[in-house]
Each structure stands twice: as C-alpha cells, then as structure tokens.
C-alpha cells in the first residue's frame, strides 16, 4: 500500500515548448511509476470506481495486475470491457467518472486510473504480437462510420466471427479520433494501431464511402447482402450562435478548424490544405473541442488566444486536465463572458468579438446556475479569428435517405438501450444517437450494439 495522498505526477512536456509544436503533451508513466501509483489503490470492497465507469471496466483488478508487474494481464482485464483503452486513458473525463468515486479522493487525490489505463494500453501496443484472426461464422455485418462507436462495434463483432465491413466517408479511418482530437492529445499513431488491430481481426474498411449516397442503408442489406447494419455516423453539423458576423472571413467552426489541422495536417509545411493562422484568436465554448481549437491556434503561432465561456471555471465542460494544460500554455480564459456580435471591417474580415459579462443566477434544468447578462458590461476582444465550438446538431443524411428510420425530435437516430432502431436489422450508437457526447460512451454503445446484433443474427437461425 502506498499512502501518498497525491497522484504520482504525470511527466509532461514544458508548456512553453509544447505550445509551439503538435507532439504529445503528456508522456505517460514508466513501469516503475505505474506500479507505485497502482499501489495507491485500497481495493475497497464496494469499488465505486467501477460504477462510475460507463463501460464498467474492472478497475481494481487491472490495477492489481499493474501493481504485480503483470502489465499484459492488466490490459487483458481492461480489454474485456473496453475496446480502445489507449484512447480512453487519454481522453476520458476521469474526474467525472471512475476517479470521482475513488475513496482515496476523499482525503487527497484519487488513484490515477486514467493514467494507469493509458500505461497498460501503451505497454500492450508496444509489446503485443499479431492478433489471431477468429474463424468466420459466415455472417456479414456492415458498420457505418469508423469513429469510436463503429470501431468498437466492428471489433466486438469480428471477435465473435462476423465478417465486418466498415464504411468510412473520409479518407482515413478513426472518425473524430483523427479529424477532431489533436495529435498533441491523442497521437494518430495510436488510432492507426487500433485500426490495424481490427484489420488483423479480418475487418474490412472501405474509405471514401458515404452511406446514404454511395449506397443507402437499404441497399447495404438488399444489394450487398449484409444481414445487419450498425450506424455510428457521429455528430453532425456544427452549431453557431445566430449572432451577427458569423459568416465573416476569419470565423470558423471548431470542426472545420480542427479538421484542417488534424485530418489534413495543415500545420505541416508540405500539406496542400490551407489553414488560417490568426494572430489574436477567440474561441467560443468551454468543452474539450474548444480547448483543442484554442491550443491548436496557439501552436499555429497565435500571439493571444482566448477561451470565451458564458459560465464560470467550475462549469467548464472540458476535462480538468485539458483546462489546466491550456492555461499552462498561455491560453487566456474569459469566463462569464458571452459574445453578442462578431465585428467586421469593410471587407467582411473579423476585427473583434463584442461581448457582455455574465453573472450566475438561479440553477437551470441542467442544475447549473444560469448565466444572466450584466447590464452595461459590453466590451470588445480584438481578434482576427473567431472559432465557434458550441457542439453539433445531427447530420441529416442518413435520416433523409433511409425510409422508416425514426429519429428523435432534434434529429438524432432513435435507438433503444441495445442500439435497436425502428428498422429490423438496423442498429445505431454513439453521437448519432446521443448527440455530442464522449468517446467512451460511443465506444460502449458500439459494443452493446454488437452484442445485440449477435443475438439478432443468431436468433434468425
């Protein structure tokens, strides 16, 4: 037992060096540090951490394996519940999930569960040998989208012997893991290895394939002979605020800005894709995507980067670690601040963001205190670039092209807790069903749907 009250520190790169390049910020524990951190776990009977995990990873068990030095054993335990541990260890909001409930957190810091998960997964990735390809059961399933939900669903089905084809709209597999989350937070090499692992299991991935256009969902079943289809098409179009100036030059959605940087590698000298390098950048929003956009802007050479968020620091939806890293990297937080207009020059270029200050009033339906405008508090943030990171609304494509597929009032695909949709043999999960959420929830939904698909196909025989 290690009675240290704080987590063993995560080695990170110098903030003022790392905010100029795109290499990973956190370097990960070495074996010795991981074993020490693992010994901080009390192995309490109730293991509340497991209940805090959206996919119920047997956390104390894998931590015990790390403490013993059986790192591969730790990975196997995580792998029973999670499909993408190297990803989740890096991007899960642990402080709101497993670590929130850790008993060690009552007096001091909780066990660094996320860090340990990442360690076990990275160890496995650098030591694992080729996976054996399961024997085919002859049944074919189509997975639409290669983001966290699709990858998890495909992996789970492949392990059960299904012949899985994943259809990806973009030219690279990984969905939000490649177009959204930046290299400095999630190296694309990790995503590539996860994808390779799936290919090793016999999964086929068809890039450049927009389902709804190239083939409809109906055609996947009728013409291509897939017995079931999983829709993991992700979140959709970016939201904007509806304020003046949002279509000015220099205003971007975070999706566009991050796609240019991450998927198209616009920050590299030899990339053919342009990206706007603002000098003073204002990012509107407080989630992980906002932090990612702000930190990307800094790395692209911005002198000043602001996060503009209408509530207080406590309510920021981003992972705590990302907020801390952003602040260390000299991103300025403009909290309790709300934009009212994007100010432009005569040529429709952005010159400033007109804002008002907010104060917190009574709690709203989400339980968070509602921000209200402070009278007479108008002020301007000078900026030549504004990035909107306000979440997304569902992509209409599948809905428009799939007769009989029911959607929720706001347009997300309607699916039950097992991912079943209104159409027989069609399942869905991830952001396409929930709206913008987390990687782990999407991954969990993909896994659950895979089991439901297995039951559905087995039940037909």
């Amino acid at each position, binding site marked *: 037992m290690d009675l240290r009250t704080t987590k063993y520190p995560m080695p990170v790169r110098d903030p003022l060096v790392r905010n100029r390049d795109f290499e990973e910020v956190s370097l990960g524990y070495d074996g010795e540090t991981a074993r020490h951190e693992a010994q901080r776990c009390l192995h309490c009977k109730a293991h509340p951490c497991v209940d805090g995990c959206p996919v119920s990873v047997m956390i104390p068990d894998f931590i015990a394996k790390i403490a013993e030095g059986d790192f591969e054993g730790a990975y196997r335990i995580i792998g029973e519940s999670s499909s993408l541990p190297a990803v989740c260890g890096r991007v899960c909001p642990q402080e709101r999930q497993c670590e929130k409930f850790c008993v060690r957190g009552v007096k001091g810091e909780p066990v660094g569960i996320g860090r340990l998960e990442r360690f076990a997964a990275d160890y496995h990735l650098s030591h694992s040998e080729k996976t054996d390809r399961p024997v085919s059961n002859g049944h074919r399933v189509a997975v639409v989208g290669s983001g966290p939900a699709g990858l998890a669903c495909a992996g789970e089905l492949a392990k059960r012997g299904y012949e899985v084809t994943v259809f990806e709209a973009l*030219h690279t597999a990984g969905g939000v893991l490649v177009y959204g989350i930046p290299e400095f937070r999630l190296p694309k090499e990790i995503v590539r290895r996860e994808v390779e692992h799936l290919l090793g299991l016999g999964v086929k991935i068809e890039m450049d394939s927009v389902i709804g256009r190239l083939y409809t969902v109906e055609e996947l079943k009728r013409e291509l002979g897939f017995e079931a289809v999983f829709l993991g098409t992700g979140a*959709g179009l970016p939201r904007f605020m509806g304020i003046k100036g949002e*279509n000015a030059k220099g205003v971007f959605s975070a999706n566009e800005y991050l796609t240019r940087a991450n998927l198209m590698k616009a920050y590299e000298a030899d990339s053919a894709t*342009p990206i706007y390098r603002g000098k003073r950048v204002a990012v509107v929003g407080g989630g992980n995507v906002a932090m990612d956009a702000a930190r990307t802007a800094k790395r692209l050479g911005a002198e000043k980067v602001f996060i503009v968020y209408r509530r207080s620091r406590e309510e920021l939806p981003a992972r705590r670690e990302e907020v801390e890293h952003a602040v260390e990297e000299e991103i300025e937080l403009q909290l309790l601040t709300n934009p009212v207009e994007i100010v432009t020059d005569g040529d429709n270029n952005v010159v400033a963001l007109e804002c008002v200050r907010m104060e917190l009033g009574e709690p709203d339906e989400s339980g968070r205190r509602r921000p209200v405008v402070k009278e007479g508090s108008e002020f301007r943030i000078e900026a030549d670039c504004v990035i909107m990171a306000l979440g997304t609304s569902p992509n209409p494509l599948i809905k428009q092209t799939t007769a009989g597929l029911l959607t929720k009032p706001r347009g997300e695909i309607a699916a039950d807790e097992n991912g079943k949709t209104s159409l027989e043999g069609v399942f869905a999960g991830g952001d396409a069903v929930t709206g913008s959420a987390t990687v782990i929830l999407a991954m969990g939904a993909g896994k659950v749907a895979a089991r439901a698909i297995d039951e559905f196909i087995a039940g037909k025989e």
Partner: protein
Amino acid sequence: MFRILKRRELNKSVTLIEIEAPQIAKKALAGQFVILRTDERGERIPLTVAGTDQGRGAVCVIFQVVGATTMSLDRKREGDTIADLVGPLGNPTELDGIKKAIVVGGGVGCAIALPVARRLHELGADVRSVIGFRTRGAVILEEEFRACSDVSVTTDDGSYGETGNVCIPLKRLLEREKFDAVYAIGPLVMMKFVALTTKPYGVKTVASMNPIMIDGTGMCGCCRVTVDGEMKFACVDGPDFDAQKIDFDEAIGRNRSYLAFEAEAREKHCNLYKKEGN
C-alpha cells in the same frame, strides 16, 4: 486509388477527365458533386459531376487549372490514379415538372450546366442554353450543348458569338417567352447578375453554389451560405438554392478566404515543376 480512364483538354486551362468509379457513376445525378484528393498529401476539393458513363463505370469531371491541386490533377495522364474520390454528394438538381427552361453556364461552370441541360432534354423539356466565356479560346462544350438545347454563346470580348455577358441573351429570352425555370451555374458574380436579371420576370431561378469544402458530408460547416437570412450548408442542404435568396456578396467574400495561401501554393508548385523540368 481511382484510375483515370480518359483525359481531354477542352481549352488551354480547362481539362476533362473520366475517373473509374462504377458505383458513383451508377448513382450520380445532375447537380451532384464529388470530392477528390490527387495524392496522399493533397487537399480535398469538390468538383461537380459533369457526366457519367455507367457502361464504362466512369465519372466525368471538368476542371479549370487555377491552383496547386488542379495543377497536379492536370498532370495526371490516362492510366494514372488519384488517391480518393468520394460521392455522389449533395442533392440532385430538382427538375421535376419543368417543361421549358433556360440553363445559364459561365466559363468552366458550363461543365456543370451541361448535365442539367442534358437531363432536362431527356425529360422532354424545351431547353435553351446561354453559355458565356471570356474569349473565343475559352469556349468549351458548345457542340454538347447544341445536341440537347438551343444555344446562345457570348464572349466578353466579342471574339465569338454575341459580345457581352450571359445576361443579354437571357433577358431577351425572358422578354419574348415564358419559362418554368432558370438554372445558373458559373462564377458567383455571374450567378448574382443572373438572379438580378430574372427577378423582374418572377421566374424560378436556381443557382448551384460551389463554396470551399473539406469533408463535404455535413461535418465541418465550412460551406455555409446565407439563404433567405438563414445559415445553410451547401454540402447537405444544397448545392442548389433559390438564387433570389442567396447572399452572393457574402459568398464571394468567403470564397476569397484563402487567396493569399493559394497564390503562394501556386507559386511553389510552379517552381517545383520548373526544377523538375531542368
């Protein structure tokens, strides 16, 4: 990888290529577009489908050499491959119930206007085409338009056809006869003036927008256009919109967002080829 089956230079700066993509060829309809990447480091560019040949499984696109990407695409020869071709994207042009229409094409936009004229002709409509170019040497696809419509050609400098821009014959047609619809496809400035020209006649006028895009599937939000005061996305809501309701001035500005970058890339690209040539 997608193979180039055919390549033909239509004029000095406009090239037609046919790319092997049987499923896209089977699905693509007039008004839809594809996104392509020439190679692994390339950018994604949207190009409207200029035609398909289902028998040969070919998708035809016509492009003007303007930037680094179109330059490298123009260097591809028959038998060469491009890295990616995605499509068909966007909504097909709505042509149902149209009996009599004018199709207006400007410059390389004629490549996109042609399938609309063809499709209307196939549907039995009375089709008039007004195609405008800078100068005689820039004229493309005239024969193809003549095969499916009555054609008026204009050139800015008067070196071929009627002198002036497309709005002159367009106005003349609208003065003489009644039409169900006008389809405008070309530079934004041309479409803006087509909309202004047709407005007094109250004829349904559709413009095909071709904004900057990245994914083209409804994810990035780059292709937003203001239509009737509302934010629309050309990739999933368009690319066709009611021309009377489009904020063309804003769209013109947005399309110029990366001019400096494009100029630099073009410069670099040209220098690269000069070196290769040595």
